[in-house]
């Protein structure tokens, strides 16, 4: 198990970090209902 985890560990760690970034970015753009939040001009007006 240790051998499998340590094999190519640098690439695996990079993929994990990248996966977290991708997950975080998608999460920011997804409503709790699971819908992608489209950008509308009214959002900017509210700000």
């Amino acid at each position, binding site marked *: 198990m240790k*051998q499998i985890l340590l094999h*190519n560990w640098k690439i695996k760690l990079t993929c*994990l970090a*990248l*996966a977290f*970034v991708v*997950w975080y970015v998608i999460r920011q753009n997804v409503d709790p209902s699971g819908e992608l939040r489209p950008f509308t001009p009214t959002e900017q007006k509210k700000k």
Partner: protein
Amino acid sequence: MLGPMTQAIEFVQAHWTHGVEVVLLAVLLYYGYLYFRGTPGAKILVGLALIFISLTLASQLLDLHVIGWLLRSLTVFLAVALVVIFQPELRRALNELGSQHFFRSALQKKESIDQLVETVFDLARRQFGALIAIERDISIRQFASTGVDLDAVFSKELILTIFHPKTVLHDGGVIVQNDRITAAACIFPLTSREDLDRSLGLRHRAGMGITEESDAIAILVSEETGHVSLCHRGIIERNLNAEKFRRRLNQMLLLERYEANPPS
């Protein structure tokens, strides 16, 4: 003591699905990277991914709404473009997923190793020079295009025929992927190391070269002495006997206990 413990359990209960999502994404990225590395479209993929991730992060952090909207709108076109660019690779990936090689057991691998050992020492006995590169996680198929496509089942007879000094395919290396000989007479990059024994010829330098550029294993048989060598990650182990050769292959291909300091 109980408070933080309960909080930790509640946190795990509330967010374990997020962890699963991240791990699944990481696994997809890892195998995607290993699969596409070395293909002609890999550089395009890395370039597109870098641009996409940088722009997405910038639009998130700096609140760039127009860039964000453009990225979201272009995602569909990007997905279609990726399918078109990587059509051959995707077809091959789906083909491999459906093939039995993907689900091979350790026992089957062990049988393949036994067959490989027998073949290599038969080559050595006949003093046929040989260079066989066995692909592992990182693709080496870009070198296959430098030789002659075969896509044949691995067999001792075929390897002996390829490396017979009077055949047109005997110069260059053979590429083995998933028990299949995918190409012969391939040209591998030479190692750039200058501290090597002068007795090492071009075949050995090519064997070391390909293992420096990938995680492939290169098996070498000397035409002059009939000695068998093994290269891995740019390290060459020379003059191996059948038992040691088999043990090293088991360690590398079946991930059995690895020797702490392999001889250089």
